[in-house]
Each structure stands twice: as C-alpha cells, then as structure tokens.
C-alpha cells in the first residue's frame, strides 16, 4: 500500500500529489521532489541503453529510513512516483510494477478526456467536464493507498 502517490509533469511540476497521512504532506512533497533527481539520472542512463522499447518502470529510486520511493516514467516523460512504507515487506517489485501500470492506465483515461487541458492539475474541483475523470483517478489512487495489492 502506497503512502504517497504523485504524478509529475514533464516540466517537473506536480500534476497530482496525494499522501495518506495528510499532516506529513510537506515531507512527502519534499521527498517526491527530491526523487526527481534520481528519476532524471535513471532516465538519462537508460536513454542511452535502450532507445526503443524501454522499460517504463524505474524501480526503487532510493530508500529512506522509513520509506521506499519508486519511480515510473511514461514515454511522454510524465513521472509517477510512489512512496511505500518500508516496513511493508509484502510489496515486491512485481506488485509495485502492476500498481504503476494501473496508475498509468488511469492517468491515460484522464488524458483522453477531451476537456482535459494538458498540463493542468488533476483535481476534481475543476470544470464539470473533467471533474468526473479526475474523480475516477482519485478513487483509483485511494484504492491503491488502502488496499494491499
């Protein structure tokens, strides 16, 4: 179960960021922001190796004392970052991978909404056309944060 899920735009600003213990929100923001450096590093390292058919899943970005930070980057350089409690040993690489895939699909659904303006934050308080798919995304993230996949 994820503690924090973030979607970061190509230009490295947050499109969506949510964490479960809301009182520690700032900490997760910092954590996610800092992890972008590692994402960049990994992407640039990977870019040389495999230009086509590269793996979107970046794996563990870095561990901290209490958390593990995983990364995933789409072909359009949108990054997904997930922070997982490191005490949760049930989560293997494969589970994380599938969670990211789910997240990616959900994100694609939001992008497919014709009312979505690329680059906007994913927030259900927006206009009516987009709020529905944003809410769907939100529920999906909630489910990822609650259930142990």
């Amino acid at each position, binding site marked *: 179960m994820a503690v924090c899920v973030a979607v970061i735009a190509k230009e490295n600003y947050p499109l969506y960021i949510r964490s479960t213990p809301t009182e520690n929100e700032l900490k997760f923001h*910092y954590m996610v922001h800092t992890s972008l450096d590692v994402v960049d590093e990994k992407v640039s390292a990977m870019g040389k190796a495999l230009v086509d058919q590269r793996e979107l899943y970046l794996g563990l970005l870095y561990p901290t004392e209490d958390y593990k930070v995983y990364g995933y980057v789409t072909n359009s350089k949108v990054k997904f970052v997930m922070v997982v409690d490191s005490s949760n040993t049930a989560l293997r690489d494969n589970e994380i991978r599938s969670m990211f895939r789910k997240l990616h699909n959900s994100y694609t659904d939001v992008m497919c909404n014709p009312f979505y303006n690329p680059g906007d934050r994913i927030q259900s308080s927006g206009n009516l056309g987009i709020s529905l798919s944003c809410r769907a995304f939100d529920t999906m993230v909630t489910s990822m944060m609650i259930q142990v996949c």
Partner: protein
Amino acid sequence: MAQCVQSVQELIPDSFVPCVAALCSEEAERLTRLNHLSFAELLKPFSRLTSEVHMRDPNNQLHIIKNLKIAVSNIVTQPPQSGAIRKLLNDVVSGSQPAEGLVANVITAGDYDLNISATTPWFESYRETFLQSMPASDHEFLNHYLACMLVASSSEAEPVEQFSKLSQEQHRIQHNNECSYPKWFIPNTLKYYVLLHDVSAGDEQRAESIYEEMKQKYGTQGCYLLKINSRASNRASDEQIPDPWSQYLQKSSIQNQESYEDGPCIVTSNKNSDSNLLSLDGLDNEVKDGLPNNFRVHPLQLDQTSDSSNSIDGPDHVKSASLHETKKGNTGIIHGACLTLTDHDRIRQFIQEFTFRGLLPHIEKTIRQLNDQLISRKGLSRSLFSATKKWFSGSKVPEKSINELKNTSGLLYPPEAPELQIRKMADLCFLVQHYDLAYSCYHTAKKDFLNDQAMLYAAGALEMAAVSAFLQPGAPRPYPAHYMDTAIQTYRDICKNMVLAERCVLLSAEILKSQSKYSEAAALLIRLTSENTWKGMDSDLRSALLLEQAAHCFINMKAPMVRKYAFHMILAGHRFSKAGQKKHALRCYCQAMQVYKGKGWSLAEDHINFTIGRQSYTLRQLDNAVSAFRHILINESKQSAAQQGAFLREYLYVYKNVSQLSPDGPLPQLPLPYINSSATRVFFGHDRRPADGEKQAATHVSLDQEYDSESSQQWRELEEQVVAVVNKGIIPSNFYPTQYCLNSYSDNSRFPFAVVEEPITVEVAFRNPLKVPLLLTDLSLLWKFQPKDFSGKDNEEVKQLVTGEPEMIGAEVISEFLINSEELKVARLKLFPHHVGELHILGVVYNLGTVQGQVDGIGALPGCHTGKYSLSLSVRGKQDLEIQGPRLNNTKEEKTSIKYGPDRRLDPIITEEMPLLEVFFIHFPTGLLCGEIRKAYVEFVNVSKCPLTGLKVVSKRPEFFTFGGNTAVLTPLSPSASENCSAYKTVVTDSTSVCTALISSASSVDFGIGIGSQPEVIPVPLPDTVLLPGASVQLPMWLRGPDEEGVHEINFLFYYESVKKQPKIRHRILRHTAVICTSRSLNVRATVCRSNSLEDEEGRGSNMLVFVDVENTNTSEAGVKEFHIVQVSSSSKHWKLQKSVNLSENKDAKLASREKGKFCFKAIKCEEKEVATQSSEKYTFADIIFGNEQIISSASPCADFFYRSLSSELKKPQTQLSVHTEKQSIEDAVRLIQKCSEVDLNIVILWKAYVVEDSKQLILEGQHHVILRTIGQEAFSYPQKQELPEMELLKFFRPENTTVSSRPSIEQLSNLIKTSLHYPESFNHPFHQKSLCLVPVTLLLSNCSTADVDVIVDLRHKTTSPEALEIHGSFTWLGQTQYKLQLKSQEIHSLQLKACFVHTGVYNLGTPRVFAKLSDQVTVFETSQQNSMPALIIITNV
C-alpha cells in the same frame, strides 16, 4: 562539497603536525605579554618552516620534508572541555559569513539557474578548528607532545635555577599519575631550553653569559637565546610593522587556553545565566509572546520548539558575548607592539633552529629506536600470534568484518604497551610526511589491533592507513575508501566516539571530493548527520555543516542533482537554525528557494518562504521577512485554514514591527485582500432616494444596477438626441455622453466630471484568497487633490497638491469591513469634494487584521457580522488602485505592439456647482390595458443651490406619455384633486345630436408635434421655464398603455441645464426607467371604401364608407367586465366623419369578452374653403358620440396621443418603391395613380372599460387609433406582426432581379376613375306593346386623380365568357359603342347611355369597360379596366 582554499594534499599534513609544549616562567610570560601575546602565540605566525628539511629514515634513506609546520602550545593540564570546544566551534562558524559582495557562481542545471557560492569559508574554519581542538586520545599519538620548550627570561634572578625548576615541573606533569593530561608522545620528551631576552630593558651581557652557561649545561643543540622586544612599548611606532598575528588570533584557538583555564564552568554558568538574563534586544522574547503558540507544528519545522527553548538562546548569547569580548580585545590592542622586523626574523630563526637542531633529530632518533624495538620483537610476537590463531581457528587470519566482532569497546592497552609502539612509529612517520613508511606501519598495526579486537585502535589505524595511502607520493595504490568506511563505522557504532567519526568523515569526504567521487562523499557526509542527539546538541551544527557540504556535493556532480541539493540545503538550514546559526540558516533556505521557486511545488515553497520570513525576522531583516511572508499569502495558497491563519498573523506581526520602526515612513503596501482593480466602479452623485409613500423616485443610475451594454447604448442615443435638439440639430463635436457610473465597460479615456458638494462613490472589489476571514478597519480612500479655479486665472497661481485635508475633500471611513474566507466583496467608499480642482483617487488605506477567536476555526463564524470584532493584530497600510486602460488597437503601431490606453476613472475633475434635479412620479401605474389612458403626476424638485432650466425629456416611446398640450393647463394641477376624474376633457351633450358628428379642429403645433424632426424630445412645460433652488413643481402626465401586450421598459431621460453656463458641464441628465405591464384590451380594424353618394347628399364623388370592427380581445383575467365604445372620432386634414350608418339597436356599443362589434360611418371631405384656409398642419376632428358625453378629441390628452401615434406611425418605414425605374416619368405617373387611391383618415376609438377590482368597480378609459391610408385596405389599431416563415427555402439560383413592376397594380389603377351607373332599379315596360325596351342609363365618370385622364368607354360586350351570354341573355347598348373622353383633374363627367332589352328579366348593366390612361403618357397603362360591381336592373313586363 564546496571548493576549498586548501587542497587535500595541503590540508591533511597541516591538520596533523608535531606538537610542542611550551612551559614558561612567569617572568618570560611577562615579557611576551608586553606584546599582548603569550609565548605560544608569539611563535605561531612563524611556525611553518620556509625551507625544506632533510631527515633520514630508519633505513638511512634521505627523506625530504616540505612545508613542515609545528604547533607550539602552552601546556594545559586539563583536557579541553567539550562545552568549550562547542562554543568555540559555534563562534567560528557564526563569525564566518559569506562576504557581502561575493560573486556567486551561476550553475545551470536543466532548467534551473542557480546562484551558488562556491566556497564555504565557515566550513573550512570549522574544520580547521575542529581538527585543532581534537582532544588527545590514548589510541593515537598524532597530537601528543613531542617536545617541550622551557622558557625563562634573562631578567630573572636565577635563570638557571628557573630552568631546572621548569624542567622539574615538566617532569612532574608528564610522569605524575595525577596528571593524565596532556599526553606525551614518549616518556623521554625532548626538552628545549629557551632564554628570552628583552633587548630594550635587559642587560645583554648578562643574557649572553647565562646563555653560555646554558650551552654548557644542556648542550648547544638543546638551548636557545631568543632576543625580543627590541623596541620599548611606550615608544610611538613610526614604523609600520605587519601584524602577522591578527589572522591567527581572530579565531581564538584552543591552545590559547588562559581564558578557558577553568573554562567549562564559566561557559556553562554563562549559558544558564544568559538564557534568562538578557534578551539582547528583546526580540526573541517578543516573538515568543507575540506569536500564538498554538501552531500546529510543521513537519519539517522544528524551529518553533528550538526557538522557544533555551538551547538556542544560550549559544547565541554566548556567541555574541564572546564575539563582543574578542572584538574588544582585538580592536584596541596591537599585537607585537614591541617587536621590530628583526625580532620577527629572530623568532623565525629560532623556530628553524629548534626544528633542525632539536625536534627533527629527536624524531629521527625516536623512529630509529622504535624501529629497532619492533624489528627485535617482530619475529616472536608475530609468530606467536599466528601460531595461536592457527591453532584455535584453524584458518588464515582474515580481516574480519566489524559486525562479527563481539567486543564493542575493545581492549585498552596500557600507554607503554608494545602493541602501541608500531602505531607510535607510524604516527611519527606520518608527522614528518614519510607516508610510505607510515602506511606500512599503520597497515601492520591495523592487523595487530584487529587480531586483538582492539576496535578503537584498529579504527584509528585504518583511518590513518587510508589517509597515508592517499598521501603517498606517486599514489602506488588506490585510495582504500573501505578502510575509511570501516573506521567511521567502528568509531561511531562500536566506540560511540562521534568526534573521531567526524574527523574521519571530514578527511574522507575531502579526499573523495578531490577524486570527484561526489556522490560517495555526499553519502558519507549524510550518514553522519542522521544522529540527532549525541552528547547534547552540538550535533546540530555539525549536521548542518555536513548537510550543506553534501548539498554542494550534489550540485557539483557531473549531472548536477539540483533537487537533492535543494533538499539538503533545507535540511542544513533547519539544523543551522536549531544550532542557533540564524544567518547560515537563512542563507541555506534562500539558496534552496531558488530551486523551489515558481515550480509548482507550492507546499514546499510556502514552507521555505515561511521559514525565510521567520529567520529574516529574527535577524532583523524585516524587509526580507515581509516579502517572504507576502509570498505565502499572495500565491494561491493550498494550506489549510489554520496554517493560513498562522501565516497571516505572523505576517501582520512582522509588519507591525516594520511599521513601528519607521512610524513616519510611507504606509506599507499590503498584499491582502486582493483588489480587482478593473472591477472598480465610480459613481458620481447622491445615492438614490427610496420611494417615499406613493411618490416614486426616478430610478436614475446607481451602483446596484448591473451594466447592460444595450441599455447604455440606448441611453447614449437618447442623450445624443436631446443634445442635438438643444443645439439645433447638430451634436457638438465635444459632446460626450454623461456617465454617472464608470466601470470597466464605460469609456474612461476622459477625465470624468464630478460636481462640488456631490459625493463620489468608489466601489472597490475585494477578494479574500485565504481560508480565514480578513477584517479591514478604518477603511477609506486615499486621494490627492489639486485645487484649481476653473473660472479663470488658471495658471497664475501654482497650487500645491493637497493630500489629506478634510476641508477640501471629505472622506467617508468604513469602520469595519469583514471579508469572509474566499469571499468576493465590494466596499463602497465615498468622498465629498468641497472644492473645485483635480482629484486623483490613489488607493485605499485600511488596517488589516484578523478576527480573533478564530485561531482554529475553519471558515467564518456565522452571524459574526454584527457586533464588534476584537481585533487581535492589525497593521495600517494601503493598496494602490491602478487601473489599466483598454488595449489600444487603432493604429498599426498599436496593433503590432501591446499598448494600453489611460483609464481615468479615478481622476475626476471637480467642477463648480450644477443644478441637481430629482423627479418623482405620483400615481404612476404599473399595469395598464393596451391603449388605456391614465393620468399621473410628475414632481420635479431642484435639490441643488443653482436654478435649473431647459428641462426636457426624451424617450424612445413618446407615444407612451404626454404632458398635455397648451390646453393642459386647464386640468386640475394637484394629484389629489383629480382622484376620480376622467382623464379626458369632456362636455355633456344632449342625445339628439347622436348620429351626427361634432366638428372641432386643432393644429398639431399645439401639441408639440411637428417641430423639428425629433418627436422623441419633449420639453417639459415648467411654469417659468426655470426651477429655482429648492423649488418643486408637479405636472400632470398622461400615460397610454402601449398597444402591444406584455411588459414594457420605457426609458425617460430628463435633460436640464444650469442657468449659468458652465464651461465644463453643459447639461446634466436624469434617467428613469418605467416598467409597465400591459394586457390586451380591444382590437380595432377598419377599412374605407368609396361610396356612391346619394343624390341628396353633398360632396358628390367624395364620399367614403368607413367600416370599423372592434373586438374585445381581453381575456378578462384582470376582471375587465366589458368595454363600451364611447366615441369614435376621426381626425384628418381632408376628411371627416359625417355620421354613423347602421346604428340602430346597439346603442351603447357594449362589448363583452371576445365580442365583436361592427360600426359603419360615412365620411366626407371637408369643405373646400375650409381646407384652403387651414394650414397643412391643421387637423379636423369629428366626434361621433355613443353616450351622452363628448370627449373633446381635439384637446389633451386625446389629441396628444393621437398625434404621437401618428408621428410614430410616420416613422415606420414606408413601403418603398423601387428606385430603379426606367423613366422618371413613369414613376411620376405611378405616384399620381397611387395618390388617387390614398386617403388620410385617422380613426380614434375611445372606450371605457368597467373593471371589478377588489370588489370595487373602476372605470378605465382608453383610446385606440387606426390610421387609414389606402382605400380598400384594412388597417389595424395594432400593427400586425408579419409572421416570418420559420425557415426560408434555400435558393440555389440568384433570384433574378426582376424589376419590381413599376406599373401600378390593377387595383390602384381601378381607383383612377370612379364610375357609377345611374339607372332606375326596376323598369316596367310593356313588351307586348313594344318589343324593344329602351332604358336611359347615366354613366358617371369621375376622375379621382389630379391629372388629366383619357378615358375610353367601350360598350361592346366581352366575348370572352360565352356562358355569361347565355345566362343573362343579352341586352345591347344603343348608340355609340365607344367613347373617348378626356377628364380633367377631379372632373366628373356623365355619359348618357341607352340600354335596349328584349325580354323581361334581371340584367347586369355593369358591362361597360372603362379604360383609363393618363393623358400625358403615351402608351402606358392603357389596359386599365374597371370591374365594377354588378349593376342589376329588373325589367318587368307590364
């Protein structure tokens, strides 16, 4: 890690130098004290050797030592206290701040451009001090004293005695068991005897002789005569002598222990007293008191706790106090005042001599000794060791990993243990820069220690092995980083010795950095920071520094990791602030801010800004604090309400401090609430008065009205109309529509005019972006005023700007204005100009505050609008109102660039007094029947101090109302008197004259119609044309319900002028919008046709029949019972109704709901002479009455409305003839022909309706107009809507531009000639007598046109319809069968015909065909035929 001044290769040797103790006699100390220096301090600047030194290693190889440095320090008998060290480190760090004008490097990484200071001098000084202050420990010998200088003065009584005393003292210190400190390298310490000689005071001879004595006693190698103080201290120093001590003494070194002799207790006591004793500037306490403590603690923000705890205050104060002290010490005193340059050289010489002759030979000797010992013991111990190991473990001795070692502390060797000898030798070799040998020794020692599980010793050996491996010239082996890692881990985890671990990290990180292994260095640095508590709190400072270095490592990587840099900077800043290093903390946060700024990470950004704000505040950088706090509040904050509230309070608090600092300064610009300046509206004039009883004030303009572009356009047009009328049809070029309310849609390019003594209301749109309510108090406008005299002498006197005098401009102050969370709210602020001039409204000024009692409240308290708010904190400040004008887009230049026009909404010009009109409506109805006439009253009041004149009213619907014509004065003037009177002017008539019309006439001039081309502009008939100040006039006003059903908004624009001509404002206006709801009443349609006049009637040939159909279309929901047609009047220039035909039974002409009545009237032409005398504008009114009261239709209001409807009818577009006729003549002809079918008869139907309303019967009156223009065509009282086809068929061809027939229609032509047959209706003829019956028939031909007409009468039967022939049988016309005639204008010609019948029967005599053509036209329109009605004749046989 930031760049350092020293390279690693310099740094490490300098960190580990041979230590020499100095033991001075009191007298010697006194001598050096003359220079304000201790002996050790005296030597310090000269302690580095300038020349290379040679030394032989145990293998007798020559070894060169470069840049050797020795450290001489006074003997201290106690180990340095950790508190003192901590304080020292703190001082060093806080004393070293980045230089002001330091040019920072710009690092570009990705899309980040960061300004980063490349060097971190505070870190370097920290490191230097840290390494120097390392307490000597038992497991290593690097900072153990190698030698001891015994210093005595030549001025002493018994110098030699003194030397032996000192020697004994040294021995006591070293070998007495009580003194475990300082540490000595080897038991047999080198003693070096120094005789200090004061050149200026002492006896040189004596000194020389003592020196000789010493030489004999201690040997030439072991003693030295140092001559100093060549200059008397009291002598003025003419000679500028460099002060080499300053740079060393500023950082007060640990060796300089005098002040800390009993250091720890002083320091600690200081700390305790400081924390509660002084608050240096009262600042910290104030922060604590002023700020509410019930913040929720921010996750990363532990500053609050540390701020309020003493731990921060303590070191801070100590720091400042000691800084103060050192400053005092440094400023006044010149070090080395008694020393000349020769003395400097002497000291240098002395050090050199000491090193060459004393120290190095001693070291050389010691190394040799140790080496020998080792070699002799090696075989035995090694073999024993390995043997036992082999026996017990049965395997080779591996380097066991630390984790396996069970023993945590390891064993401790006695000081002279043989295991330590190799370490000693290694250390000595290291000190003299023999790294090869040192490495192998360390390596061996490491193995031994590990075997013995002596972990501390092993870690030390590992550390130094790694360092010496790195420092080996030529680098034969790579740097063993894992040695370092193991050492650090051991120090930290097993030995719990963080100081050593830290040293290890500092060295290793520096080495890694030099090898560009930044990420490893960063990892190393960060690893040491994870501990939060280690022996108290000074881990904060260390962590901060290390984190900062780690951050620098990240940014210096090949692919710079900007975000990691930023994050670690924040962590460093956090630790700095915990350590009380506020400036450094602020600097760190500021650096990190560069990365987070404007990248959408608002939460982080807010946090940083908040911290920057607080830190700046505590550092008294109030401007920075303000701007940082401002940032948090201005950006659309995503923080919770409580957090926002906290931010806001903090911000206000800081602001308050700023303003208290400079109470006379300009008011600060406040960032909150937001002002939507383009939504600012300005209104000139008084507020609208509410309705007063039945008086209803004119709606005029107010701020409550929404802007509607359509209606404002209408008003503008109305004003243009009235101005055009006033200026004789031309709108003056400088005319601009009057604008009372300026908003973003109005034209604001000109300076608006405001009238003196009339208020100016400015509506400011505030928005509160926060989730906490904002309370503005004492809100008022800020303005600038330039008094001016417009009446002349404009530029003669220079008027200064006035900005705050209530005599000039009075300003209304809103005492409290609450804006709830995330609310949009407008404030209306008033100014009262009392003087003529130019006013500029600059902005708003207010106290910004929060509402107390809402600390944790989310949202606003309901109902807290009432009552006083207790203002917890407020700041007086202002916000400017700057409105950007519209974008210019006219010229090419403006189109290509982005330019904005001026917006002068807020810069009104105050002009002289103008009259001010107020209009009230009395008995003004809201609902009317269509066509209903109602009488109301209008009251005009002049509320100003100037008389007004030229009052006019203009409306798009002039047919709706009238003030009555010239005759109106006769009606009762007061509204109360006219309560139950009819709106009409009536005359009682006797019923005898019922059927005939009563004639009167009136000219349209009397009713104000026909003057000019603007019927919409109606002058108001003021009694004296002038309304004096304070005077009021009531005038009657008749209203007529519009003919269309529905709700009507009718705009009235009252125009008036001042009696005195004003140059600026020529006129003023007042607007009123009346809303009238009309319901259906009657529908009237009428036709007119020519009638054949009977013989006995006058006016032959010009008779007409008028048919009027009246239908009650009222759907009776309003309680209308029935309509009575009271009177039908005609009004025309040429025609009049003569009498009513067919009016036998329906006497009172009642019409119930949906009932239809038909009336028929005969109309005749007015008498010729009458027509001739009348002016063309004179109308003849003829009334036909159905009751016993005649309504005088030629008087007000009936005639008024008639004329109005007439003129509005005229305005409507006429059916236009096509312009493109071939010939002008044809057009003329057509017109001629048309003209003869035209008629100008207007019918006015006057009615009464009986209405039951609230069980009371009311009589409503009204009138409908029908305008008859064409004979035979039906006309309606109410313009029929032409229903457009819902969808037109698409046409794919261009419709052929068929010339709309310029020919007149048949119908029109048939009206050219009027024919009538006169014959006996029945004719008896004795057919038996005479078989042919001849009947005389007269054919009357009358020319209806004004032109000559050729007429052909053809009597031949048509042959086209054979059936007709058979049925009717036939008769024949006798005589001429065709006549050609010419009829002059209006001529009537009778033609005698004879018809011949052969049978009895009924015959149609209407067979003559009449062809007419205009005589001056050649061939056109020849085929005009008159299809007359059948003219039947009965032929009977007698």
